């Protein structure tokens, strides 16, 4: 009946959800006999208190921006892409094949090629669930979940049996040539005379992620294709009436989504690891769902939410390192944030709407 003002919807609801998540986390930390204030201090200093912390926070955030955008584009078409994890893994394969196939003279040439490889593999991995949904009505949630498992199994087999260098005991590809190493943000800062974030993995992919945000915004809100994606996502019958073909929109939206998820691999595989490891995506695909939910499927919101989750990842790692709080508890805190900002969104929204309606 009553609607929230836009600012309350965009700012107040996520902030209150976040505060609730932290409050409950504090109770959990208290209950195991630790000091929550101390814990928060460790997290904030560890993730945001130094350029070193920021270097990691931004690195994680880069992953989450790509997967968050991926989930958001599909969501605009009314599709719930749970397969960003698998698509990001396949993107890693694309990057590895590109990086290992040619003696790249310079990263500036290798990067565009790797981006094409990453996006193409991610998009193709999303294409199969998309075409199954469009033509046969197989539910995209089910198929994308299954394709996560298929991706894990496929990469497992490839890394053990095909890509593993002879004599290596490690299920990983050979290291990429040094010429494909992407410039880290540290190097770029140093080039302009600033010492920033030494020994951190944040790299040029962060800037590419920001550029991707701009392009997604342009696509969704400024192009006829974006109009069709949104129209289809909100009303399939109105889309049919408007001459928008469902098959086409489902396939295109899912391939863009998969491509964005795949692009994440330039950050973690090319920018950080320098070779393809087992389970390279490390759950970033699932975090992307929470990021998109919390960011309201808008690029600006996604950047902010990705930074938050980057902070939680890096701060959580610091917490495990410096306090007696076990690693598992950090997962609990992250889960609480996801639960309250994503799944329990209405718990905050409805009382707030009543409050605004009562005025």
């Amino acid at each position, binding site marked *: 009946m009553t609607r929230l003002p836009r600012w309350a919807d965009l700012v107040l609801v996520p902030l209150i959800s976040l505060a609730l998540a932290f409050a409950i986390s504090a109770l959990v930390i208290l209950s195991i006999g630790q000091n929550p204030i101390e814990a928060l201090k460790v997290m904030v200093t560890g993730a945001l208190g130094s350029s070193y912390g920021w270097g990691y926070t931004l690195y994680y955030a880069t992953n989450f921006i790509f997967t968050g955008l991926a989930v958001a584009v599909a969501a605009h078409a009314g599709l719930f892409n749970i397969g960003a994890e698998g698509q990001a893994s396949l993107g890693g394969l694309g990057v590895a094949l590109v990086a290992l196939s040619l003696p790249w003279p310079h990263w500036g040439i290798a990067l565009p090629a790797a981006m094409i490889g990453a996006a193409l593999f991610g998009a193709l991995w999303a294409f199969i669930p998309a075409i199954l949904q469009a033509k046969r009505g197989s539910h995209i949630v089910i198929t994308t979940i299954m394709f996560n498992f298929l991706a894990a199994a496929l990469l497992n087999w490839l890394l053990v049996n095909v890509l593993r260098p002879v004599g290596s005991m490690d299920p990983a590809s050979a290291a990429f040539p040094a010429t494909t190493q992407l410039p880290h943000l540290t190097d770029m800062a140093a080039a302009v005379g600033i010492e920033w974030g030494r020994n951190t993995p944040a790299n040029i992919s962060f800037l590419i992620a920001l550029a991707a945000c701009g392009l997604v915004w342009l696509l969704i809100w400024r192009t006829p294709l974006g*109009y069709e994606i949104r129209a289809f996502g909100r009303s399939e019958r109105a889309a049919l*009436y*408007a*001459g928008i073909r469902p098959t086409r929109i489902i396939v295109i939206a899912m391939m863009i989504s998969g491509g964005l998820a795949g692009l994440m691999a330039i950050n973690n595989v090319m920018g950080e690891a320098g070779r393809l490891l087992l389970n390279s995506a490390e759950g970033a695909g699932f975090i992307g769902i929470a990021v998109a939910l919390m960011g309201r499927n808008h690029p600006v919101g996604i950047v902010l939410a990705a930074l938050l989750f980057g902070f939680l990842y890096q701060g959580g790692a610091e917490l495990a390192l410096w306090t007696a709080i076990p690693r598992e508890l950090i997962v609990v805190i992250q889960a609480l944030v996801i639960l309250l900002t994503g799944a329990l969104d209405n718990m905050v929204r409805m009382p707030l709407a009543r409050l605004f309606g009562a005025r």
Partner: protein
Amino acid sequence: MALPGTQATAPPAIELRGISKAFGPVQANRDISLVVPAGTIHGIVGENGAGKSTLMSILYGFYRPDAGQILVGRRDAGITDSQSAIRAGIGMVFQHFKLVPNFTVVENVILGAEDGALLAPSVSRARKELRRLAAEYQLDVNPDAVVETLSVGHQQRVEILKALYRQADILILDEPTGVLTPAEADHLFRILKGLRDRGKTVILITHKLREIMEITDNTSVMRRGEMVATVPTRETSPEQLAELMVGRKVLLRVDKAQAAPGTPILELSGLRMVDRAGVERLRGIDLTVRAGEILGIAGVSGNGQTQLLDILGGYPEAGAQVTGTARLAGRTLPLSGTDARARRHAGIGNIPEDRQAEGLVMDFSAWENTVLGRHRDAGTALMDNDAIRSRAAAQMERFDVRPRDPELAAKNFSGGNQQKIVVAREIESRPILLLVGQPTRGVDIGAIEFIHRRLIELRDAGAAILLVSVELDEIMALSDRIAVMFDGCIMGERLPDATSAAELGLLMAGASPSGIPPEQGQPDPDEREPAKGVI
């Protein structure tokens, strides 16, 4: 507001005193007082958004009023929810039936009123009671029929039976005739009169003034949340009621010049459509619509009109097989392998039957909706949103869309203004053929007048218009020729001046005047017995 002496002697069945209800800043009901004498049929009319539904929802316990009192039989009824409304003897028949389709009639009737842990005793008791009610009120329905196999008219009787089974003395019906054939509506009216004659009180909410005049004893008119008048029906006229509803003089007839039909624009021959389930929905349609004329298609909904419009609009339902030939302005129009975009390019405009599901993306702003279906026409890589916005604002001005805010989401406009957005978009695309489905369904009187005028203007500008409506009055008022559809066939064509509602009603029910029965096929499951009560 007091009623004349004749009615005042009867004790009131229900009395409302100073009912007010606000939703946020919107005052849906303002200080409403109303006395409904027992044993009468009381009509309530008003435009959409006048507050009729809110008032009835308060009466049935869905909403609690901010102020005011409800008295049933001179005592405060203490209505807090629908259970207490039922206990007070109030029964409600909703516009959209609340029946479980795969339950039998008797199961639906006892749903929520079962007594005891075992079902069988309730069922047998209910069956006996149903037979008694059926005999008393002409409410014949087989208690063991499964509801989804019944015609719409029979389903409505089940709803009435449900209320009577719960010992309702006051029956509220919300737009009960919207889905009925004229004959079914007549039968409903006989039932309602029977109920009144046995002392029940009936409150009838409708926007059809003809029905008000036909069966009500008293009529109340609502406008903008207020009760503006309550009058004995025989002392008023449709013109007066319409004026009270809108607050100004309204033309109930459409002024139009004689049509000047030109060359054939749409020619259909032998159009057939078999849906995915193998049911033949269209069984050989032959039609011609000429430039500068309006061809009206009358018929009870569900007889193939929707399928006809969807095929012509370029989006037949999935898995449908369409055969036959169609020509648009002399050129062959492909019936398969096409889409709505191609149809628009060919010059076909389309005002769809369901504006909320098809004609608009409800979450989109008004300006975004003004290019729905034509969003690629500019041919540029990026859409020029500023230009679309300003064109939308001008269009809303021309079609008097209120509020005049292009940024407002379509869902936040009233039904009439939503329809104006659709009508504006389709008319201003200058179609050579305009498909129009239920143009004024759920649209208030003022907007109906406006939309009708625009359609006539388009006709006079030389466009061909194919009009589908279940409102016979609308068909009669607008059409230059009338074709009647029943069970996927055209039953015949008539000229509006040379026919009557009764004759059209007969054709709509499938009675063939020439004595040749219509080709027998599998009837639409929704309309299995539309002819009942006519022949």
